[in-house]
């Protein structure tokens, strides 16, 4: 099977100190005190995996375990501190609810803005406009500013947009949770359809049942470390067992 996503020894270190030294005064004070180097925060530690064409992979893990971070690295939004990431084919990342939406613009304007952000061309989007609107079922709200949308409505619009491009790789970060049952079903069907066209899917969800249902493989991240990679049912089971006895931010000793 051909690999479409390859993640090799990826580490992501956030230097939390760096983030806060954003004024020269602070920099000078820190430099004088000699504590420019803060304890770095490791969000991903030496993570490696390969995903083949047509696979559907779920990523599970507690809050703050690095799931969104790895997706952002794969999407090219973050550059990993160490390691290499390669992707092949058109990628449609749905990282966060309405990531590219401008609340002041109407749904119609946002469809155009967002498509442009995804790097699509105008002709293509205009030809697909009706399809997007139909899929999201938001026709009556086309000229309403998106800031007045409910979160589910925004999710509908976002998913409709991402799926219309027929991406070869679809990356979804737990944004479907807010959609109602009917829409979730529709999204599930759409994902099935994409998969039958041999699209690759990478899905982050706290809904273990969704992962079990839609993925054939799962990856479990724990505090930035890949602890398990394999059959979705087995990984989900192991993860569920672990969550029964542990919480996200407890110290290493008890885990």
């Amino acid at each position, binding site marked *: 099977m051909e690999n479409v996503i390859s993640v090799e020894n990826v580490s992501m270190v956030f*230097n939390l100190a760096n983030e806060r030294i954003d004024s020269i005064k602070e920099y000078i004070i820190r430099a004088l005190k000699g504590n420019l180097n803060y304890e770095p925060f490791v969000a991903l530690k030496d993570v490696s995996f390969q995903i083949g064409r047509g696979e559907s992979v779920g990523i599970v893990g507690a809050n703050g375990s690095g799931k969104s971070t790895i997706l952002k690295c794969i999407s090219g939004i973050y550059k990993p501190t160490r390691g290499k990431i390669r992707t092949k084919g058109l990628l449609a*990342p749905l990282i966060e609810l309405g*990531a590219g939406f401008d609340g002041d613009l109407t749904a119609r304007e946002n469809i155009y803005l967002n498509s442009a952000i995804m790097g699509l061309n105008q002709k293509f989007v205009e030809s697909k406009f009706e399809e997007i609107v139909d899929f999201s079922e938001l026709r009556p709200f086309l000229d309403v500013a998106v800031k007045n949308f409910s979160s589910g409505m925004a999710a509908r619009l976002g998913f409709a947009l991402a799926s219309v491009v027929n991406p070869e790789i679809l990356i979804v970060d737990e944004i479907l949770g807010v959609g109602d049952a009917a829409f979730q079903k529709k999204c599930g069907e759409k994902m099935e359809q994409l998969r039958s066209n041999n699209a690759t899917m990478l899905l982050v969800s706290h809904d273990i049942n969704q992962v079990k249902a839609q993925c054939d493989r799962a990856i479990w991240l724990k505090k930035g470390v890949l602890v398990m990679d394999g059959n979705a049912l087995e990984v989900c089971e192991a993860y569920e067992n672990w969550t029964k006895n542990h919480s996200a931010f407890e110290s290493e000793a008890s885990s």
Partner: protein
Amino acid sequence: MINSLYTYFRGLVKYRWLLRQLIARDNKVKYKRSLLGYAWSILNPLLMMSVMTAVFSGMFRFDIPNFPIYFICGNLIFSFFQESTTMSMGSIISNAGLLKKVYIPKYIMPLSKTMSSFVNLWYSLVALFLILIVTRTRFQWTLLLIPLPLLYLFFFSFGIGLLLCVLATFFRDALYLYNVFITALMYLTPIFYPISAVPDVIKKIIYWNPLYYFVLMLRQLVLDGTLPTLKLHLVCISFVVISLTVGLTVFYKNQTKFFLYI
């Protein structure tokens, strides 16, 4: 380096639609709650010019024939530089939310700011032509060459904007320092005084100010009706090349670290 820059900017073709939308949005936001809207792009230089003409014909007197035109030429150039670089500078910070959630080539942000200022500059040219008519200044054929200094100015400002953008993203203080700097720069650009009126020491500094040469070229085309010398072109082109090279290199080398600071 050149090669990687080439592949990098090939994205421009792919993202040109986004660029267009961002420019349109900038201009829409700018005049969102104002009655006159775009007319301000024309009114603003006109009003500035009236105030300055009143001040300088009443209080101070420089020996400048056709002061209104002289002033507006300098003002157009300087205002564009100020607006575009200031907006570019904050463009990564103000789009932090977007840049942390979706992938867009980062240079799109400073570029769209520079371009939306450039659109504004063309509106302001209407003001220049209105004053030419009102003051009954002769329309020189060299007016046709106005786009040339403006293009130099555009690329020069884009380069500087990229550099400042990197600086501000890593150090927010730069935004405030730049405000001070730009005020100093304004006085060191002969916008409302002739270069002959300043002492030699200051003159030496002004000769290092790139804006001086862009202003000079525009005035030659509009006021004097003379063709800029080859030397003046070379000076302008050198500034453009230096600014773009430094700006692009610094931006390209640092842009992957932006997300750690926004």
